[in-house]
């Protein structure tokens, strides 16, 4: 696949075709814009390439980035040299993280948009309100739930804010460990409910959700049960005739003209040839780490510190949502099997511990959920004996007698927690890799402790004979959630994007991934990110491309 040195210009370029880039590609191309989309990873065929192979998907990085080709580095303070570490290894391929995800898609809460108003200054953190509110996102949350396909029960979550429509698909039947969770919640007076799931359970939009294998979290789904942009929004974009997809093509720079506007991108095609693609508008959806990296790599006389970085804030205030949890082991002498590997990863969850309760001694809270303990090689039992008879006995006694409950840590934004370019480590294309500098805020550590202890308490009520709490010490990026590296806000001196996720500096550059989040929220971010990407894409087609601009004023 060798393009002419300079293919013709198009209306829009979308870089990164995961959850948000694919949403942009769909909305833009359906509105009639000519769009070229790039992904550095492959354009796989779900039905031909995906199956229940634990070794391949969970241990050998078939979907996760190869750490030698796409390294990242990590350090926990300002002075240490960063070490290679596969931090937040979101799969890089068409469909991105929606290929491998379990697919928790809860809605954000009204409080998530108001952290600064609610809590004022938090020492050592940089709390900020969003320049939009829940009400601005609500219509798009509904669009994504229906167009992408989400299962759930409207009204089951006692704490959910206003929704304009129910869910298009019903939840799966509960798992055994899910039933335990509901029973324990009801004993404790907690509102357990089926976590909204990025999957359909009937033929919504012609999909055939035949996958009942329980090979779910971290695996690709060969059926169309899972809501994956690879099998939904990408083919819908292609069907418009307005969208061309160039996979295994690595965008290394967003270029700007003398007037400071973006002119297009430079990418390396699969044969290693550099190609220039021009467009009227450039949309980034690489994820908050790689979008920041691409902006920082895109230096020019106008932007010596990186594209759109006159504020110096690109890469800063990065948040990552560590997954913290507790595992419960049950006594097979007195209990029935829980079959913790069965089900599509998540089952019941609750928002009971989400909002701030000052009595806990910290602000904020998390969504928690009961979830799979997964498959034989990697089933989740931290501290399992590593070898010998004890190992064999542990697997034999507890593989079917374990469950876990975990939280998505609502980590606080801290300016010095950031993504920048590693001074020495290069990727397989010779380009500087993303370096993560991160130290948890004290609120993060306190929240992790409180939430995990609550997880363990629920497990004990559910009948667990032993619990293994897994607390936050240092971030590993184990959720693949990334946010905050190009915050949106009204002040161009302290934020990177405006309320339409349009660069304050470069008016034809938009970022539709989690980079724009001023705060991390305590929910899995993809639904919010996709709804926001839809909102921004609609602004591009309906307002920006007509030569107008609009602004949102919030109270």
């Amino acid at each position, binding site marked *: 696949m060798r393009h002419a040195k300079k293919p013709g210009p198009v209306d829009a370029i979308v870089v990164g075709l995961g959850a948000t880039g694919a949403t942009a590609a769909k909305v833009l191309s359906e509105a009639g814009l000519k769009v070229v989309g790039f992904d550095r990873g*492959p354009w*796989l065929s779900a039905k031909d*390439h995906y*199956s*229940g*192979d*634990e*070794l*391949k998907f*969970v*241990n*050998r*990085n078939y979907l*996760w980035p*190869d*750490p030698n*080709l796409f390294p990242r580095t990590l350090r926990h303070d300002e002075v240490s040299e960063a070490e290679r570490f596969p931090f937040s290894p979101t799969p890089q391929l068409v469909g991105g993280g929606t290929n491998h995800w379990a697919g928790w898609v809860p809605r954000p809460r009204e409080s998530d948009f108001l952290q600064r108003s609610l809590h004022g200054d938090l020492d050592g953190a940089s709390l900020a309100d969003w320049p939009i509110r829940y009400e601005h996102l609500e219509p798009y949350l509904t669009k994504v739930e229906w167009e992408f396909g989400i299962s759930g*029960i409207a*009204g*089951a979550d006692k704490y959910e804010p206003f929704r304009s429509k129910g869910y298009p698909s019903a939840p799966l*039947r509960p*798992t*055994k460990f899910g*039933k335990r969770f*509901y029973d324990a919640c*009801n004993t404790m007076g907690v509102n*357990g409910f*089926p976590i909204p799931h990025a999957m359909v359970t009937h033929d919504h939009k012609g999909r055939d959700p*035949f996958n*009942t*294998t329980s090979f779910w*979290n*971290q695996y690709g789904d*060969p059926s169309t049960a899972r809501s994956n942009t690879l099998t939904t929004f990408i083919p819908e974009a292609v069907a418009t005739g307005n969208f061309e997809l160039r*996979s295994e093509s690595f965008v290394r720079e967003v270029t700007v003209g003398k007037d400071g506007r973006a002119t297009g991108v430079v990418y390396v095609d*699969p044969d290693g040839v550099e190609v220039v693609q021009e467009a009227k508008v450039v949309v980034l959806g690489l994820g908050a780490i790689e979008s920041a990296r691409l902006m920082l790599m895109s230096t020019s006389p106008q932007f010596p510190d990186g594209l759109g970085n006159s504020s110096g804030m690109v890469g800063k205030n990065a948040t990552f949502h560590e997954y*913290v949890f507790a595992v419960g082991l049950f006594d097979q002498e007195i209990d029935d099997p829980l079959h913790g590997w*069965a089900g599509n990863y998540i089952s019941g969850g609750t928002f009971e511990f989400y909002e701030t309760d000052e009595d806990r001694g910290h602000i904020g809270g998390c969504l928690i959920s009961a979830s799979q303990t997964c498959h*034989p*090689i*990697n089933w989740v039992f*931290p*501290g*399992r*004996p*590593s*070898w*010998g*008879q*004890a190992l*064999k006995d542990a697997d*034999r006694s507890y593989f*079917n007698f374990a469950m876990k409950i975990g939280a998505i840590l609502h980590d606080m934004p801290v300016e010095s927690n950031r993504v920048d370019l590693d001074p020495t480590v290069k990727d397989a294309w010779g380009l500087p890799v993303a370096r993560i500098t991160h130290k948890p805020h004290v609120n993060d550590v306190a929240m992790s402790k409180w939430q995990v202890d609550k997880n363990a308490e629920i497990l004990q009520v559910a009948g667990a004979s*032993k619990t293994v*709490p*897994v*607390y936050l*010490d240092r*971030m*590993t990026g184990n959720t693949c959630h990334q946010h905050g590296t190009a915050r949106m806000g009204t002040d161009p001196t302290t934020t990177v994007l405006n309320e339409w996720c349009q660069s304050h500096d470069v008016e034809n550059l938009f970022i539709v991934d989690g980079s724009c989040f001023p705060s991390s929220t305590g929910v899995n971010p993809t639904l919010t990110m996709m709804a926001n990407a839809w909102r921004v894409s609609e602004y591009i087609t309906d307002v920006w491309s007509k030569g107008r601009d609009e602004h949102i004023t919030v109270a």
Partner: protein
Amino acid sequence: MTLKADWEIVGSPVDPDSDERLFFADHEWDTIEAATARIIPTDHDPGAREARVVVFLDRYLSGIDYIFAAADGSGFLKLTGKFADAWRARMSDMQRTYREGIRTLDSLAQEQFDRQFVALSESEQDTVLEALSGSVKPGPVTLGTSEAVQTFLQGVFDQGLPFFEALCLHTRQGFYCDPVYGGNRNRVDWDVIGFPGPTTLKDTMDGTYNTTEFFHVGGYDWNELVPHLGKVG
């Protein structure tokens, strides 16, 4: 260049009963077979020896022909380009880790018992593995306790692991993997722990393999599981 999306399927599933050696020399084969049998021992159920973990490891370590099974388990994917280069370099490191590790096992065995590792009794081999690992052999899991740990990434990758850690991880992988990779012979190791795994990988692609019977059994009512639903009417 062949794109990753177009990787060819070549070869065939690994025969667990094969005695052919693609990587290990005979002594290395025997040493690894004995060592993995101490990681997951044989008791009233099969252990690593019966699972043919040694075959799994020999094929894995032989190069880049056995890294990713084809989705349907009919053979293996032929890696290309930068992916092939990255895996070749990685496997070269892992080959060195094993060759040196096996020599270390023998030298520890010589120091302590004046014989090679394979010639030792099982308890003597355990003593050598304790020396290699730097800690005592793990004891049984106890109920009624709670032991805290710190967060970690999902899915353990083996790159850069020291020999003992790699050996433990690979033994586990060879014991519980899909049999296409040469271990978990006849899927008996899934039986050991009560995992009703698929007969073939292909069965996980077309709806043949169905696990819903392992979900909650019997009737359920969302209004009972989620009493709040009844309250909102």
